[in-house]
């Protein structure tokens, strides 16, 4: 098949669509890694949990609380779900992760791996792995937009825009505000920051909560596109790990930019050589590590 510009643009656009989810998730991972030094293996499961909480709120909550007509709508879900799941993340940090700060960081990886299995296994019992449709897509986002080279569903366009906004908003807060300065200082030297009278453990807890909330937010945005499945996070998390490593572990901008770029590279591969689309990100990761071991945006220490 010949390669047309139109086909390339279409696949890159779809790649960007996937890329914003990579960016949202790797951003959360990077924030958590920066302050806690923990690779949060549960991140994929928490993304899936976000989608499920939205689905449950829409389709199952009403009858449960005795109001059969109640449905948590999409806009409410965008706000409520990250808060609920983020809260759960805070609980997780306070009760489990906290106990592991003094031992090898690998145990943090293993603990969160276990948590991921618990969440995933639980939902697999009740929901089909091929996905349950989440029909709460608001009327205004139905239909398509003609981009010239392709017709693109409005909802997917919205997903790109809102995700980018959240990513860059987060970047702004961390890199350009006083709050972010504390956070960055906490990453570099927790003892010194504590000496300035800042409650570091609280900061750690809230950071973990925020990272988790980002994953849940991504889950809600993804739900109408991919339909909600217990394995949606498991498929995603490994790719996102690679994205974080490529961007440079702990680097905020690195996570966002490499997430978007790699999504598009993946799309491009689908035009040029489709069988490699699953591997291309990992190949890039190996190359990056050979040339720049700290990642594209990471600093060598």
């Amino acid at each position: 098949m010949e390669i047309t510009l139109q086909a390339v643009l279409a696949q890159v656009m779809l790649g960007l669509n996937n890329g914003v989810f990579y960016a949202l998730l790797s951003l959360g991972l990077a924030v958590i890694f920066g302050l806690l030094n923990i690779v949060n293996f549960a991140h994929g499961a928490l993304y899936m949990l976000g989608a499920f909480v939205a689905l449950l709120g829409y389709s199952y909550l009403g009858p449960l609380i005795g109001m059969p007509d109640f449905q948590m709508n999409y806009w409410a879900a965008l706000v409520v779900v990250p808060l609920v799941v983020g809260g759960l993340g805070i609980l997780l940090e306070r009760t489990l992760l906290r106990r592991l700060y003094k031992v090898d960081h690998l145990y943090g990886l293993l603990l969160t791996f276990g948590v991921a299995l618990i969440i995933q296994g639980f939902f697999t019992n009740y929901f089909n792995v091929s996905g349950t449709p989440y029909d709460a897509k608001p009327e205004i986002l139905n239909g398509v937009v003609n981009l010239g080279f392709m017709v693109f569903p409005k909802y997917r366009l919205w997903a790109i825009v809102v995700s980018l906004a959240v990513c860059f908003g987060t970047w702004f807060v961390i890199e350009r505000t006083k709050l972010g300065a504390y956070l960055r200082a906490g990453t570099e030297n927790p003892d010194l920051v504590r000496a300035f009278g800042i409650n570091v453990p609280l900061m750690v807890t809230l950071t973990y909560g925020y990272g988790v909330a980002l994953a849940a937010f991504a889950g809600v945005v993804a739900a109408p596109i991919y339909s909600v499945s217990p394995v949606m996070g498991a498929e995603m998390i490994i790719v996102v790990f690679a994205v974080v490593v490529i961007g440079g572990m702990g680097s905020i901008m690195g996570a966002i930019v490499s997430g978007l770029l790699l999504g598009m590279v993946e799309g491009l591969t689908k035009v040029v050589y489709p069988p490699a689309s699953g591997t291309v990100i990992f190949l890039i990761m190996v190359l990056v590590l050979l040339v720049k071991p700290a990642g594209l945006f990471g600093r060598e220490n």
Partner: protein
Amino acid sequence: MNRKMMKVLAGATALALAAGPALAAPTRGISDGVVKIGVLTDMSGVYSAIGGKGTLVAVEMAVADFGGKVLGKPIQVISADHQNKADIASTKAREWFDTGKVDMVTGLLNSACALAVQKIGAEKRRITMNTGAGSTDLTNKDCTPYGIHYVYDNYALANVAGSEIVRHGGKNWFFITADYAFGHSLEQNTSRFVKKLGGKVVGSVRHPLTTADFSSYLMQAQGSGAKIIGLANAGGDFTNAVKQAKEFGITQKGQQVAGMLVFDSDVKSLGLNTAQGMLYASGFYWDRDKASRDWSKRFKAKYGAMPTMDQAGAYSATMNYLKAVKAAGTDDPDAVMAKLRSMNISDFFAVHGKIRADGRMVHDMYLMEVKKPSESRGEWDIAKIIRTVPGDQAFMPLSESSCSQVRK
């Protein structure tokens, strides 16, 4: 550990290896005092709406209708979820045959699993009655003396529906294919009929089983300029692809999405608005005649939905297996297979059914069309039979089969 001990142990090992006579001769009557039927299918995955718990319900219904006993011995049903993984399917089947006293396995949705289990069945001399999988390899290069392919196969689907679409002007095809045994076989079979009727296949793309996002595949299909986008996949993958084709406005632009394997449960989940006018082939439709209606209503009362052809087929397969055991006076697989091959299978499910030497159960197939919402007169009134294709015309002729069981 010292050398001396090593030598003693090596000797013991050699002794153990030398012991043990050959296999016991086939038994008469019922072996192990029980006839056990295993339902091994996709219970939780992308195909679970097609088979899943419904297949188990159907098999249990058949056992109950038969009276729960055969030749004075109890009939038991066990089930397991193969999760669409060939390794889980084969491990489970091996365990069932080796230690679980299972005499016959049915269901077996998913061709990769079906092929694996049919081979193990042949090795262990147990009958496999496949109601779910589509690959024609089951009755060709991978056929066995104990494997029966009961409901439909990819050749018949392509023959009955695929060629009908070509005749309606769909000459240029692009395939979106599930990347495993079943999808490959379905694409291959359909391509053959498309080319035979003067059509052309302009390209194809393969997707992994259980895909959530078909957009990039659909873009490729759209770019190919083909008139027909043939979906050589099934179940959740099929419905996902159709929905997303609609989301990207592909169908509005004159391209037509055609499912190569459509089950009634898929039509139901797409809704008549999306699926109307779709042509597909089926081995069974619940609203065919009085017998099929009566049984299907009984099934719906137990399961909550009308049967798919897989589920209805599993009832029929179980029932006829038990009849054959009774007639043969034994559950010895060779005797039962001989009986099954000599029987005429005619019930609510199959019309003019006959099991051939290659294991193919040949029976009437139907060309179906999904009704318009305005034509539908009830929740399950979703399709109509436009043509009945007699079994000997629908399925691959025995003369073309590459099965080694066929004497030529």
